[in-house]
């Protein structure tokens, strides 16, 4: 039995999914957290079902790729039961989608989620009445606390087994109903192979014929003409396209339903308004924003560096003693050294910074600060030819560039997607944190690391400015729902951090160890120099030792590798003995900007196409080269001024 979670953005679908399937889908307090589907086989109340988490969508007429995913899933996979989550505190809006889902004629169950919030706002909903008005089960739910899950799934199983068909609620406008009926009759006579009920198909085709038709792989002219005929008929009778008139009807109907079954509470919880008065204030809002970022930065730095130092010396001590046990310069010693280097890179350099970073990031996401940032930064983003919504991929980029590139699905225009994808891969992800903090902050002080972040933002903004000037088109402007603040639970914050850190532990760490072993062998058998020759033009231009070449090449696999292998390649335990501050800065800037890691390249290829992937990768090398040279120039300038003074 396949059960699909469908609902408007941010209503708690992924939260429910995770409660049932274990933490497998990212959640966050902003619309558009989920951009792709996640399937999981789970056992509920003794029965095995396939549960699917889908992106949120306001309506079945999709406007962006994430939402199209929902329609595509519904039409191409056999979904046995639709589990429709509705945010009980915004019942009216949620019901618009519910009415649309009813038209599909599939077994449907409505879960009123966020009952706790609705109660806090003084909203009461008459569930049984709504149930009888809609003709489908309606159950209360608090997904974040796991309340109501059992009765909900009992009902789901029941519906799934009995395959109860669902009847749509007829339109109050008799004309529309007639049109739907006669079109569905005509469709029935044609032999279409689509997994829809005839009436559902008729409505969908009237609302947005083209998308569905292309999926039906029928350049079928007769069908096209028929639909066109009906669309014209609606336009003539009502002066509006079917898309408009259908949604207007549902809009009015949803309002009517909501008015009948719910009583509104008093005004919004006041602390929410107060918090927004401060956080969205024309002046203080920005002060607080900078404050939050600075505190975040300092916490990551202080925790990370407190752990990095002692752990590094511990491992270095072990490596130094190794020769005594297994023989100085023997093959086994070299391999063990590589393994230890790789392990220490993970425990001592990556995780100490990654963990506090992920915790803080998860907190900001769950509390609901990201959409507020979009609001605050919209006018600045406008100057880069974008709008505030694009801030979300950027912020996610600080965690990892892959979800950042995927998050561009929530942007409607292809132009925006290309631009944001290009820019967001320049955002220093958590892997590059290791380099910025582990190298720069550790050896040169945290404020230089901060300068690198600022420099990075300036470069991204300038690139955006230049690119949007090259591919200028009208900027569509910001339209974004701002959810209420929510207090994250300790449990979700930790689960989420683990979910993301796991990616490093399982995928990247083995690579770090393998890379370190490889480097030991490359040095042992003297082929490192040959490989380094390949990158010599770059390293020479940047004024770096040629041994830096291999770490840079390996950085394409995972950016952490660049730093972990650096110590080894230079054959020192203390990098400051081998590199000058100027070289460290040049190296770091280059690492931050040049080719994103393989996983990101793959994501670019998937979200855009192969050609764009190559364009972006090449561009990134050019930008890395230019910015590293600029950085180098700046350091030389500053130090020579320092000498003169």
């Amino acid at each position, binding site marked *: 039995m396949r059960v699909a979670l469908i609902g408007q953005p941010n209503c708690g679908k992924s939260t429910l999914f995770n409660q049932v399937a274990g933490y497998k889908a990212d959640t966050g307090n902003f619309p558009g957290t989920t951009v792709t589907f996640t399937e999981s086989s789970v056992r509920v109340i003794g029965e095995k079902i396939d549960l699917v988490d889908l992106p949120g969508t*306001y*309506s079945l*007429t999709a*406007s962006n790729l994430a939402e199209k995913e929902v329609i595509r899933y519904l039409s191409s996979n056999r979904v046995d039961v639709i589990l429709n989550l509705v945010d009980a*505190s*915004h019942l*009216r*809006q949620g019901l*618009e989608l519910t009415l649309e889902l009813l038209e599909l004629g599939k077994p449907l169950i409505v879960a009123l989620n966020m009952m706790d919030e609705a109660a806090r706002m003084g909203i009461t909903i008459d569930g049984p009445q709504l149930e009888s008005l809609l003709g489908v089960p309606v159950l209360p739910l608090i997904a974040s606390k796991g309340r109501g899950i059992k009765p909900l799934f009992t009902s789901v199983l029941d519906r799934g087994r009995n395959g109860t068909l669902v009847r749509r609620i007829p339109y109050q406008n008799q004309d529309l109903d007639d049109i739907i009926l006669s079109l569905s009759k005509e469709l029935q006579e044609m032999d279409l192979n689509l997994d829809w009920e005839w009436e559902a198909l008729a409505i969908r085709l009237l609302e947005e014929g083209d998308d569905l038709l292309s999926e039906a792989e029928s350049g079928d002219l007769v069908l096209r003409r028929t639909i066109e005929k009906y669309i014209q008929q609606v336009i003539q009778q009502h002066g509006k396209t079917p*898309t*408009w008139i259908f*949604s*207007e009807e549902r*809009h009015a109907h*949803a309002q009517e339903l909501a008015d009948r079954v719910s009583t509104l509470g008093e005004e919004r919880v006041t602390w929410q308004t107060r918090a*927004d008065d401060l956080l*969205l204030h*024309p*002046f203080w809002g920005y002060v607080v924003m900078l404050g939050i970022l600075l505190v975040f930065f300092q916490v990551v730095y202080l925790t990370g560096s407190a752990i990095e130092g002692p752990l590094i010396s511990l491992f270095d001590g072990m490596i130094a003693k190794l020769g005594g046990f297994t023989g100085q310069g023997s093959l086994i010693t070299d391999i063990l050294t590589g393994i230890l280097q790789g392990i220490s890179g993970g425990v001592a350099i990556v995780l100490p910074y990654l963990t506090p970073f992920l915790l803080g990031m998860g907190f900001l996401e769950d509390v609901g600060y990201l*959409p507020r940032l*979009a*609001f*605050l930064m*919209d*006018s*600045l983003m*406008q100057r880069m030819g974008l*709008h*505030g919504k694009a801030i979300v991929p950027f912020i996610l980029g600080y965690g990892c560039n892959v979800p950042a590139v995927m998050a561009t699905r929530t942007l*409607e225009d292809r132009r925006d997607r290309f631009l944001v994808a290009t820019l967001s891969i320049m955002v220093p992800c958590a892997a590059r944190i290791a380099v910025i903090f582990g190298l720069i902050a550790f050896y040169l002080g945290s404020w230089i690391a901060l300068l690198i972040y600022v420099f990075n933002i300036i470069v991204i903004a300038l690139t955006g400015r230049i690119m949007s000037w090259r591919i200028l088109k009208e*900027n*569509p*402007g*910001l*339209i*974004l*729902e*701002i*959810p*209420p603040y929510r207090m994250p639970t300790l449990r979700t914050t930790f689960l989420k951090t683990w979910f993301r850190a796991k990616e490093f532990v399982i995928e990247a760490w083995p690579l770090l160890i393998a890379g370190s072993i490889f480097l030991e062998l490359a040095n042992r058998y003297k082929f490192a120099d040959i490989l380094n020759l390949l990158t010599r033009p770059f390293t020479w231009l940047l004024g770096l030792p040629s041994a830096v070449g291999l770490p840079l090449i390996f950085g394409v696999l995972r950016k952490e590798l660049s730093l972990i292998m650096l110590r080894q390649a230079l054959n020192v335990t203390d990098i400051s003995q081998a590199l000058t501050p100027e070289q460290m800065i040049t190296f770091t800037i280059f690492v931050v900007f040049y080719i994103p890691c393989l996983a990101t390249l793959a994501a670019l290829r998937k979200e855009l196409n192969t050609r764009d992937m190559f364009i972006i990768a090449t561009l990134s090398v050019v930008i890395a080269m230019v910015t590293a040279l600029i950085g180098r120039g700046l350091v030389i300038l500053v130090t020579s001024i320092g000498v003169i003074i």
Partner: protein
Amino acid sequence: MRLIDIEVNTAVEIVSFEGGKGISSKLRRLGLMPGDQIIIIKRAPFRGPLLVDANGRSVALGRGVAAKIEVSLCE
């Protein structure tokens, strides 16, 4: 009157959407249609967006978008 010219904390009713199909259909999908009441809660500085309350839901609207929404005052 356009939404962009309205003061903070004034209740207005949407009359129509102007211009491109893109903006009006995006607003429609969010559940914002002619006839609905909205109130501006905040305005961001530097030609930034507006924050409006639409049927109990907070929505940020860029200037360009707000300039395309025709509204009338409600009593």
